[in-house]
């Protein structure tokens, strides 16, 4: 029974660690998407409205 509990505990920690990875990957993806839109996309509307922020935050602007 102790052995079973260990196996289950290991499975749980593996599941939790997969959940961790899922969360980390999601955060990275969301961060990169927002960053691309605000800092790098060259669409005119985005470029004009984000203009001062891009210069002020040292993104290559135009």
């Amino acid at each position, binding site marked *: 029974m102790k052995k079973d509990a260990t196996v289950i505990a290991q499975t*749980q920690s593996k599941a939790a660690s997969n*959940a961790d990875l899922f969360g980390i990957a999601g955060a990275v993806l969301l961060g990169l998407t927002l960053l691309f839109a605000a*800092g790098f996309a060259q669409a005119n509307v985005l470029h004009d409205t984000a203009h001062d922020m891009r210069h002020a935050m*040292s993104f*290559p602007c135009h």
Partner: protein
Amino acid sequence: MTQPMTCATPCRSPATKQMLKQILTSAVFAGVAAGVLAALLQLWLVVPLIMEAELYESGARVHFATDGSTQSDRGAPSVWEEPLRHIYTIGFSAVTFSAYAFLLVAGFALARRFGHEVTVRGGAVWGLCGAIVVALAPAVGMPPELPGAIGAEVGPRQLWYLLCVLCTIAGLGAIAFGNSGIVALIGAVIIAVPHLIGAPHLDTYFGVAPAELASEFVARVLGVAAISWVLLGLFAAMFWTQQEDL
């Protein structure tokens, strides 16, 4: 034997939820707070210089005029003239810092997986490293540019910027978390790689704004980046550790 079995399924879901909530709340609260404060600092210190440089970009002011004079008037237009423009700046600053916050908090979570718990004081150091990654290191090869500065094509410059950011993250990570001098040394070499390759530059100088204005701008951009990022790191670590205690 049945007792642990009943725990196996329900335990997984709250752990996942807790983790996602911790990432989401830390990143959004810290990102918006640091982003708005960063924008206020920029409106005070940086945006007036951008607006002054635009006078040279448009030709309203001329430095090195045809009469041979190198003098031009000093002074920026008032930031109160175009309120909508600055509201956009505040908004985009909040979005950008939220994006940084998501990446920073992902770093916190990754560090925790390898047994490095983040503290509030540690958060300030994480923040300072963030400023080095996105502002200081790229500025060594490609200083922040005033409007009107003519540089190489924007595509290659963006690529070099991203390369520099990635190399600096990898290098600082090796220095911070590597367990030996050799790993730290390799980290330092990785940080140097984009600078050895060299940022894209033109063969000639084209600047229309006075050199004093450009240098003041660069110094202030880097200073504001350092302060804003330290605040971001502190805020993110505060929310992160608070959620940890729940």
